[in-house]
Structure formats: structure tokens, C-alpha cells
């Protein structure tokens, strides 16, 4: 379903963004757009400015030039008065969870609801419980503090907090980094099932090739401050660009693509 709906305004529109930190150029004229309902991945090697781009989309950082529109609103205005309406429409899962360490899991998840709605305590509790079970955490973990959770559980808890408002758009920053392969695969499945259930648009920053093959509809590869290529994994894997070839046809890339091909065959037969 992804790139079909060209007539609709894109959920995210990045146009001609350049970023410089002093003399270091992070992005030079980057343009991308994300359509409703797709899983869009931003990939690239370490230090290619993936996370910086994400922070710029979220309005946490202002690009040196160019503009980024989120739901048609300039992301520089996110912090201002009409920001709140936009903030309700997206959820963010940070790389290390960014759970509030002084609050229990349950209290962490309820924060956005408390802030943006006036619901009864009972409904708040039930919604939070539903989200906690949606992300596959056991009910008894609700009263635990982040320091008592394992890395994978913390990631799930952060996801629960990101989706508690039923956002249209979900940002994932390195969702599977540092997770074991089983849990990482489980996390991919979780994102897919949530996408099906809640009709999410997902934007993720990752360099996990397995999860790129498994869940991304479209992938943008960043490198040397530019967008080296945008397309499905199939298209990118046939790209002539040397950096992309290196990226996808290194030993790990090949294993991931073989695995993906094998999975497809498995599904067909």
C-alpha cells in the first residue's frame, strides 16, 4: 500500500535540509517524504546523521537551512502554541528508552494521557494496562521501576509510552539495537502487528539489516550528508551506488538478504 497515495499530503516532508555543526557538514540538501501508512526506514552507517535528522523532524534541533513539515506544520513551530495538537499525533521511542527513572512503568506510560486528556483514573488505568499487554509485557511489571527491567523490557515499555495516545505516527530510534536476535525479531513483529491494529505510520532509524528487510516498506540510505538512495529493499539491493552496495552486500548484508529471500520462498510454498 505504501507509495500509492501520492495525492495526499505526506505525513512528513523534508525539503532541502542542510545541517552544519561548525565546520562539520552533517546534511547537505536532504529531501525526503513519508506517506501515510508506510513503514519508512532511515538507514546508513554510524555518524551519517540519521539521528540528527530524526531530532530535526521532532523539532528538537533546528536545521541550518531548509524546512521540515510534520503533518503539514513546520517542525520549528512544534514547541510553540499549536505544538500540543501535533504532539498528540505522534509518539517517539528513544534509543535507550528515555523512561523516567523516578516513575514506575505504569506511571511512565500514563504520562502523555495525564498531560493531554481529562479521563477518569479507572479508564486511565485500563488503557495503560491494555497498552502494557499490547507490547507484550506481563501485568506484574507495571509496578516496577525502569532500573528493575531488562533492556528488552525497557524498550517495550518505551514503546508502550510512545503508543499510549494511539498516535498516527510512530518514531523509532534504533528499535532493535542491542537486543538479541530473537527479541529483535519479536520486536519487528510487534511493530508490524501494532501497525496493523492501530493503522500507524512508522518512521524508524536503524542499521539492523534484518529488520530493514522484514518490516520496512521504503528505505532511505544516508551517506556523505546526502540521500544516496530511496526505495524498497529490493530496489536498493540492486543499486549501483558504491556505498549502498558496500552497505547491503557486505557479509552481514548478504546474510540478511538471503534470509529475507528464504522467508519469502517459505511464505509462497
Amino acid at each position, binding site marked *: 500500500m505504501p507509495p500509492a497515495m501520492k495525492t495526499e499530503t505526506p505525513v512528513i516532508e523534508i525539503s532541502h535540509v542542510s545541517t552544519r555543526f561548525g565546520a562539520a557538514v552533517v546534511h547537505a540538501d536532504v529531501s525526503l517524504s513519508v506517506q501515510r501508512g508506510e513503514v519508512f526506514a532511515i538507514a546508513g552507517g554510524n555518524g551519517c546523521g540519521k539521528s540528527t535528522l530524526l531530532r530535526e523532524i521532532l523539532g528538537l534541533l533546528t536545521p541550518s537551512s531548509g524546512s521540515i513539515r510534520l503533518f503539514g506544520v513546520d517542525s520549528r513551530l512544534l514547541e510553540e502554541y499549536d505544538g500540543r495538537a501535533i504532539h*498528540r499525533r505522534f509518539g517517539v521511542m528513544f534509543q535507550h528508552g528515555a523512561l523516567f*527513572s*523516578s516513575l514506575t512503568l505504569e506511571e511512565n506510560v500514563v504520562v502523555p494521557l495525564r498531560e493531554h*486528556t*481529562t*479521563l*477518569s483514573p*479507572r*479508564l486511565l488505568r*485500563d*488503557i495503560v*494496562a*491494555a*497498552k502494557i*499487554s*499490547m507490547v507484550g509485557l506481563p*501485568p*506484574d511489571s507495571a*509496578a516496577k*521501576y*525502569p*532500573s528493575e527491567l531488562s533492556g528488552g523490557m525497557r524498550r517495550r515499555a518505551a514503546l508502550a509510552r510512545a503508543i499510549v*495516545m*494511539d498516535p498516527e505516527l510512530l518514531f523509532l530510534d534504533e528499535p532493535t539495537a542491542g537486543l538479541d536476535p530473537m527479541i529483535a525479531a519479536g520486536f519487528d513483529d510487534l511493530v508490524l502487528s501494532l501497525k496493523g*491494529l*492501530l493503522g500507524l505510520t512508522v518512521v524508524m532509524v536503524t542499521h539492523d539489516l534484518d529488520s530493514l528487510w522484514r518490516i520496512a516498506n521504503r528505505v532511505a540510505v544516508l551517506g556523505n550528508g546526502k540521500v544516496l538512495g530511496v526505495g524498497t529493499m529490493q530496489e536498493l539491493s540492486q543499486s549501483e551506488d558504491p556505498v549502498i552496495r558496500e552497505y547491503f552486500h557486505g557479509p552481514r548484508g548478504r546474510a540478511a538478504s538471503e534470509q529475507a529471500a528464504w522467508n519469502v520462498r517459505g511464505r509462497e510454498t
Partner: protein
Amino acid sequence: MVAQQASIEIAGSVIHCRGRWTLQNLADLERQIRALQWPEVVALTYDASHVTAMDTGGAVLLQETITDGRHRGQQLSLRGLQQEFEKLLQLAGIQAKAMVSGPSASRPGWIERLGQAAWQQLESGARGLAFLGESTVAFLHAARHPRSIRWRSLLRVLHMDGVNALPITGLLTFLIGVVIAYQGAEQLKKFGTNIFIVDLIGISLLREIAPLIVAILIAGRSGSAYAAEIGTMKVTEELDAVRTLGISPMSLLVLPRTLALVIALPLLTVYADVMGVFGGMLIASGQLSVSFAEFVTRFEEAVAVRHFLIGIGKAPFFAVIIALVGCYQGFQIRGGVDDVGRHTTISVVQGIFLVIIFDAICSILLNWWDL
């Protein structure tokens, strides 16, 4: 009806749900549900065919009303809900069952809580004792092998917590000297014993006030920093890294800080003595017309050297208390960011508390020995 809104109404035995059952409208829906008059019918049907949108929140709310109905003994059925929303509702339903069957955490009785609190106190006492023992061992080791002391970090700490503290300690004790002189001047003028201002300022500052002010300042300035630094290192697993590199955190962190403070605090106290007495001198000449020359002559006669020595003699002990309490609290940090703040506060409060206790004990003992 506006398309953006949601409603729930009862007509006979049918409950009509309409509109967008999404988070924006939930507060409104909750109000409507509370105002509903539930009929005394056994069987009720939800008609959800006009629900145009539903998210998890909406599903949970719908599930709540269904559960409530069941509790009242009504039979409820649902029709017309779109398939994609049905999935959400099922999920909410599974959740509801899990919640009911899940064990509820019971609050412990007061005896148990009292016992836990007492045990925690005992445990923290034991940990403190263990820390004291460990640091003593480290000190003895360092005394025998002075080469193992990390002089570079010692000098760094000496600079940060000694040299950089000079302006603030100087200013503070200068002002304290001024304040004491003013207060003393009022009383001494009445008796015409102006020259005794020198005794008042000299003895009180040198013996008690300057060392205490410096210790309190350093507890707030450096003790808290030690707790926060070591605590943050613990949270970020830097301490574990240090241990796995075969370096003892005691010799890397605690020893240099403690030794540096032991050196810095007496020196700061001497500096504070000078500044405080100077402040008093200014006021003495202004308010009591005791000239600088008279002041200094009287100072030599009236203020025995032992007052000065007692004052700076206490400073190294204060230093050990402040540094060890700060480091100890840093090592006690377990959880996350809020724990750092809590233990930093504790380090300051406990440091100042112990310094004053130690000072009081000194006063009593020295009084006994007629010093």
C-alpha cells in the same frame, strides 16, 4: 450531529454508540456514560454500527461499560461493530480478564514495615562500616606505598576544591568577621571596653567559626560533587569498567579526594582566619576607634597560639568526614537519575551534621583538658 463527536444513548433495550470513539472524545463519552440511566432489563444490545472510528482508548471504554453491565447481572451483546475495531475490543477484553484474575499486591502490615525499616537502617549502618573499613585499608596501603597514590588526580582535586574555593571562602568569612564585630561593638561600647573586640573576634573566629564555615562550605561545594560524580559513574557503569580494568575505585576516586581535602581544608581555614580577622579589624577601627596597630598588638597578647592550632587542627578531621561521606553516598546510588539527586542531598546534610557533632565533641573534650 457533528462528525467529529461521539455519543452513547439508550433507547429501549438497545444502546446506540455513534461517532468517533477516539481519545479526543473519551472524556466527553465518559461523562455521557456516567449520566446514563441504565434500564432494568436483563438483556441489552449494543448497536455499534454507527461507530466511525475507534482506537484503543475507545475500545477499553466500551469494554469497561460491558464489564460493568455484566457485574449488574445483565446480558449484553454487541452488533454491527466493524471488524477492525472488533480486534481492538477483543484485546481490551483479554486485558480486562487478566486484570481481574491477576493477583493484587497487598500492603504489608505495620509490624512488617517497622521491621523492614529497622532492617534497612541496620543494613545501611553495616554498609557504612564496611566502607569505612575499606577506605582505612586503602589509606594504610597508600601510607606504605606512597607511589601508588594518584598524584595527578590529587592535584586536580586540590585545584578544583581548594584553589577554586578561595574567593567564596574569603568573601564569606570576611563578612562573618564584619558581622561579629558589629554585634560585639554594640555591647562592648556600653562598658567602654572597646579593645576586647580583639579577643572576641580573634578567639571565636580562629578557634570555631572559621573552621566551621569552611567545612560547611566545602561540604556543600565538594561533598555534594563527590556524591554526584561517583553516583553518575555508577549509573553509567563507569565504576564497573574501572573495576574490570583492575583498578580499585578506592584508590582511584576516594583516596585522592580525601587526601586533597585533608591538605586543602587547613589551608583554606588559615586563609579564612586572615580574611575574617581583617573584616573584624575594619569594623573595629570604624566603630570602636581601635586602630589597626592597636588591634595587632592586642591580638598578639590576647589570642594564644593554641586557639589557632585547635582551629586548623580540626580542619583535617572535617576534611575526612566530608570526603568520606560524599564518596560513600556516591557509592550508595543504585537506581537512576533521581537517586543521584537524593544521595547528593544526603551527602551534604550528613556531612554538615557529622562535622558539627565532631566539633561539639571536640569542644567538650578540650574544655575538660582546660585548653
